[in-house]
């Protein structure tokens, strides 16, 4: 995030920042912007097109699509970065430690990360869902889902961090520090700023991945459950639209979740180009 300061401020970037701030505010104050709750069913007007009362129409159960989008954005954009942060923190810790210690420690952590990458973690998630009480509230369920994604997402970034730290350890300034007797933890701490671009890149690529992963989990009942909306289950609801029945733009308002997701990710890409590019 700090890298943004290193990038020049241009009108385009300013617009992106404003868009992100407006979207964040809209998600945060969703209750004030919509007249209906995200779970209120107005059963006399299911699947209604946009109107003054419902700018994005209603869904199949007569719920306000705008309210659901704003609340869903709040859930996803708050929790996906938290999950990404968790996975990157674990990656920094384990990847850095593996490179720094070398030997059996490195082999163990690398082996574990390879194993994690090769395992069908979906079954682990299904196992966790089976172990969870059925009465787990939607809010707890969504938090557990994202926490699991965060924990399981460490392996790939850890390998990137490990190779980054390994190359830094071979640099002259680390050798110099070692010769001066600087302690290992101190050296590792000093290396962290140098890893920032790599960690940043991992963070920004993980955010959309986790949002989409949550959508896929929703198919198995592992994601966000009714009536709580999330970008994931709103995207899931679009499945029948993309099945090619209608003209792509015949019911354009249904694609608002895609637009919001694309807008946010694009703005982040523009505001933090170096991180995302890496």
């Amino acid at each position: 995030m700090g890298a943004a300061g290193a990038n020049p401020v241009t009108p385009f970037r300013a617009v992106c920042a404003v868009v992100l701030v407006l979207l964040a505010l809209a998600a945060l104050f969703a209750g004030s912007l919509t007249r209906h709750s995200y779970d209120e069913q107005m059963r006399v007007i299911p699947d209604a097109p946009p109107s003054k009362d419902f700018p994005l129409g209603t869904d199949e159960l007569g719920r306000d699509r705008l309210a659901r989008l704003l609340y869903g954005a709040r859930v996803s954009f708050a929790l996906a970065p938290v999950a990404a942060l968790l996975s990157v923190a674990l990656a920094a810790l384990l990847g850095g430690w593996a490179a720094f210690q070398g030997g059996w420690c490195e082999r163990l952590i690398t082996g574990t990360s390879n194993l994690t990458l090769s395992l069908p973690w979906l079954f682990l998630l299904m196992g966790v869902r089976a172990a969870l009480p059925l009465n787990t509230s939607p809010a707890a369920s969504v938090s557990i889902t994202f926490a699991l994604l965060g924990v399981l997402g460490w392996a790939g970034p850890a390998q990137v961090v490990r190779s980054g730290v390994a190359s830094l350890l071979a640099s002259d300034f680390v050798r110099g520090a070692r010769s001066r007797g600087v302690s290992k933890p101190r050296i590792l701490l000093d290396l962290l700023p140098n890893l920032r671009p790599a960690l940043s890149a991992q963070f920004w690529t993980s955010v959309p991945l986790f949002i989409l992963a949550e959508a896929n989990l929703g198919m198995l009942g592992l994601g966000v459950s009714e009536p709580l909306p999330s970008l994931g289950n709103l995207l899931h609801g679009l499945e029948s639209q993309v099945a090619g029945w209608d003209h792509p733009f015949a019911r354009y308002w249904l694609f608002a979740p895609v637009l919001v997701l694309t807008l946010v990710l694009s703005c982040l890409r523009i505001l933090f180009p170096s991180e995302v590019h890496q």
Partner: protein
Amino acid sequence: MKQRPAILLFLLAPIAIAATAESPRSGGQLTFALQAEPKTLDGLKAGDENSSLIRYLTGGMLIRLNRHTQQLEPELAISWKTAGAGKSIAFRLREGLSFSNGTPFRASDVCYTFGRLMDPSVDSPFADNFAAGKGKTTCQADGNYGVTLTFPIAINAVERLFDDIPIQSASAAKPESAAMGPFVVTEQQAGVYLILSRNPNYWKRDERGAKLPYLDSLRIEVQRNRDLELMRFRKGELHLVNNLDPESFDRVKSEMPDAARDLGVSIDAEQLWFNQVPSAPLPANKKAWFASREFRQAISLAISREDIVRVVYRGHASPASGIISPANKLWWNSSLKVPATDTAQALEKLRRDGFTFKDGVLKDRTGEPVEFSIITNSGNKSRERIAALIQQDLKAIGIRVTVVPLDFPSLISRITENFNYELCLLGVVISDTDPNGLGSVIESSGAGHAWNPNQKAPATDWEAELDKAMVAQASAADMAKRKAAFDRVQQIIADQAPILYLANRHSLVAAPARLGNFDPSILWPQILWNADHLYLRP
């Protein structure tokens, strides 16, 4: 003289019709999808819908229920005779037939099949229908082509039960490796597809003497996502879709009017039941709620069946009044009314049962807030929407409901093995219109007695009465008495509400014009009921 042209026309008409009648074309592969993999290929164990379909397509039965006429027809048995009001049944078997693996079909195979069926280690869901718990069933072969089955008690209309029993070869290594039906399983990729190839020894021929089935094979793909199934149907990759959801049906209808067909109210129902298994891992207070008739009735009153029909089914369904659909004209109890939505009455019933409703929260007599979960199968949009409607309906009486869509194997495991669930929302598919086919569902000892299966003795008085009424309807010789007994069964279930019947779906199917002999039945398996006669036009 004036009459002559008319007479000539009349005489020539059959010739003209014969000349233009289309000859079915042999060959080709029919492809369609199932939403889940069949749990078993052993027809005697097939309790779930997908396994039952494989049984239907591969199994040779002694007697078949014609899904179109709803009449029984001889199949592997050319004739049968019941004695002792259903205490025994003697079959004369068709001679000169062979299983798909070439072994001859004999009376010993019938006895072998019934030996397996009644074997407790096989745990067949159909054993109860033959009074397995009441004593021993004996099978006596009379030469190679005569066989007599004797049951522990008289079972009325016992001949209808044989539609579910595929005759298996006594010499086959695996039950599914030798079939008497039109197709035989030849290839299976777990979780992906099954190939059913034409049974080379299938005995049926069409009216012109041509060998059946017309199709070389069936490719049955496992496609959990119904949207993708529809997309593939539109692209022509799948040849038929059974049980369309209403939204998809309306879309197919608007795009391909000739392909989509609403067959009207089916005998299937969407149902919600309460877990009343005493050993279920549930808190005691929840068990007490679910065991309370007042509580169950209150839930029933709070649910708007009209909204389910209108919002979820877009009018392609009817509110359900009970276990039997109005489509089953012979057995439907017309005196049962659809429970009217009445939140005030629901709250009154709960109050009488010791519950209190304050500040929008319902609490039981111990002060515990009432909340429970409803499990349903994920990927079924209609069912997920019904669950969401119920969630809001019950919120009005202060109950917090968590909806948990689960993948099908997990759901089946919960409702049949570990009973770790509270309420379950699922559909019931009925393949027979006769009450005897529901024995496993209604009788307390039945494996399909969803709310508390496999009871050694009836857990409640009303379940004992259900058992009694089922025996009465099964053993009554007089049709009016059978109907009266089964009306009583329906009345008890409606009064006690162990299962809430929500809606009877319309039977919605789709198939392209190139599917020959497309003649769907209102009964399961709709389009595929005459699979041996289906063919593909070029």
